[in-house]
């Protein structure tokens, strides 16, 4: 789960990480008041969306007075920001964060992630702050330092020194880095983060460190034990159908094509998209109904798929292991008659109680094309939308 910059900074503050003073505003008037309350004349008005590249897209602007902050906020609020990370459709700005200006001596990069292949936490540091780390990795990988931390051991003092010296620090500044870094690791572990990224980490002329921008991601599987983090979710930042799917415990990702897919199991669901493409078709969505799909879940999934006006046919692909195909068939029949299904339906049932499931569909009077194999399923679905390339 992603959170906004202003929420990330509030969490950093709670952990004792220095961040500039700032306040959230949803109207130009609030932005003016926020700017007036901040120390100093100069402030920065920052669009709050769940995507990077805001600066280049015109979502971050400097203001030299509260009046100017109001004006700048009126420009940013309501605009649709398009950056490399938002995709071509862009994101509408509903909130701005008004933050005190900050003097900069140098900009660095610092992040903590879970390293899947080392199976440890990885601390990533670079002298190239303010740029996307992927860009630095591609252009000058020698400027990135990665250190692995065993979560059962924790961050060792020598590791702080290694990172500090790699950033060109001397012992005096390493003493300032240590509590900063320890706080980040503590936040990562205590809140079950999956990414803590400070970019840029600013060294001020005084030598003090401050987190000028911050990005936090959290492990969805751990939200059950962090209601305070789960509460930071911003529904405006989610695709409405993905949000609805999450609420009924389905994994759904919207795509561009016209063949709606309902599959059990994430791997088979991805493979179903792949086989449709191989056969010249284009899937409308990824949908994993889960290993424990029952009649009700199937009905919910069906409604969700059909809410997408692009869908011209539906492919149901179930390999029953835990799931019983007869229950799926009942769900499909119930959903189709309840909704008054108008698009062609291709159903493949295999495995657990598949024969019973097929019999239920045959008796249902629905216009269903029953198929046996994965290839037949994809071919029938592609034919149902008018053939390959349609």
């Amino acid at each position, binding site marked *: 789960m992603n959170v906004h910059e202003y929420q990330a900074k509030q969490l950093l503050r709670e952990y004792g990480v220095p961040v500039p003073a700032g306040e959230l505003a949803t109207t130009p008037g609030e932005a003016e008041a926020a700017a007036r309350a901040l120390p100093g004349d100069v402030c920065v008005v920052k669009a709050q969306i769940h995507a990077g590249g805001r600066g280049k897209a015109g979502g971050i602007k400097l203001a030299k007075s509260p009046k100017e902050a109001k004006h700048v906020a009126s420009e940013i609020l309501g605009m649709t920001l398009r950056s490399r990370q938002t995709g071509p459709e862009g994101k509408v700005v509903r909130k701005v964060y008004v933050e005190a200006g900050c003097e900069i001596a140098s900009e660095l990069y610092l992040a903590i992630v*879970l390293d899947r292949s080392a199976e440890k936490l990885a601390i990533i540091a670079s002298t190239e702050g303010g740029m996307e780390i992927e860009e630095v990795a591609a252009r000058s990988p020698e400027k990135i330092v990665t250190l692995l931390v065993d979560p059962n051991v924790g961050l060792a003092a020598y590791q702080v020194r290694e990172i500090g010296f790699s950033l060109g620090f001397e012992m005096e500044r390493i003493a300032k880095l240590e509590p900063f870094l320890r706080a980040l690791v503590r936040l990562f572990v205590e809140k079950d983060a999956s990414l803590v990224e400070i970019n840029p980490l600013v060294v001020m002329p005084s030598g003090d460190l401050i987190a000028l921008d911050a990005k936090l991601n959290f492990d969805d599987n751990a939200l059950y034990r962090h209601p305070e983090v789960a509460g930071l979710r911003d529904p405006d930042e989610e695709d409405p159908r993905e949000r609805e799917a999450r609420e009924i415990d389905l994994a759904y990702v919207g795509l561009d094509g016209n063949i709606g897919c309902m599959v059990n199991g994430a791997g*088979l669901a991805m493979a179903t998209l792949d086989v449709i493409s191989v056969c010249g078709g284009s899937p409308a969505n990824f949908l994993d109904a889960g290993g424990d799909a029952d009649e009700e879940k199937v009905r919910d999934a069906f409604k969700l798929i059909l809410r997408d006006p692009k869908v011209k046919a539906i492919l149901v692909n179930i390999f029953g292991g835990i799931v019983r195909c007869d229950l799926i068939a009942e769900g499909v029949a119930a959903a189709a008659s309840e909704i008054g299904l108008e698009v062609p339906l291709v159903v493949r049932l295999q495995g657990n109680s598949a024969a019973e499931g097929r019999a239920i569909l045959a008796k249902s009077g629905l216009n269903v094309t029953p198929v046996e194999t994965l290839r037949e399923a994809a071919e029938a679905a592609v034919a149902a939308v008018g053939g390959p390339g349609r």
Partner: protein
Amino acid sequence: MSILCDQSTRLLVQGLGRMGRLHARLSIEYGTPVVAGVAPGKGGRVIEGIPVFDTARAAVKQTGANASVIFVPPPGAADAVLEAAAAGLELAVCITEGIPALDMLRAKRALDGCPMRLVGPNCPGVVTPDQCRIGIMPAEITRPGPVGVVSRSGTLTYEAVDQLSRLGIGQSTCLGIGGDPITGTTFLDALALFEADPETRAVVLIGEIGGSAEEEAAEFIQGQMKTPVVAFIAGQNAPPGKRMGHAGAIIAGGKGRAADKIAALERAGVVVARSPAEIGSTLAESVPSLRP
């Protein structure tokens, strides 16, 4: 022969909720001795004909169980893994989906140097056809034979096994390693086990987007394996930045794309099926000696 489990497996079930009970019964029906269950506070009862113990240690001591299958819900699942290791089991297969990544990270580091092998979490389990069923796979689609199957997915494993069985090609062991970012047994571990098994004459590897496990597998295949490997990578059409059902299936920062995994495997001499409908036929064509 087989890997991980066979007729000598004596299975313990940790977590006897609805899923645990159902699949304990299905394993018993398949002929796997399910010798004990663990449900704290319910020791002394008998559930599905299985004697229940309060702790894994007591269960192992009383019944000689040597493998465990874990159905404990996410908040307690990593703890159940550690309990299995402390009880001296040789194998633990964790089915539970939704375990916090940091819990698994800590548990896995705690298992360093411990002889127990962990499979999963978020996996369908292990089946050695006609010998042993651990987990939730529909064992009736398997048949004994020379092909090892290893996969990050559940239902896609069933799909691949079904394709093989329909072609008359049997399996030595079918193994789901799980769809989470941190798994006990990796592709590398599974490939090494299959390579060391004299009866496994080919391996089907089913990967997916996210992480670099397939790239690491490719390196191992090129350097260390004589057994031919055929692969499929799911998620060739997955958009970047979106989690595709599995916690571990996400293309992040340009890493973890299907195309890169396919290229790495092909460089290592692996034949990669382009369509998931052709996993079985690709194996039959690349290793003709396996055809019945």
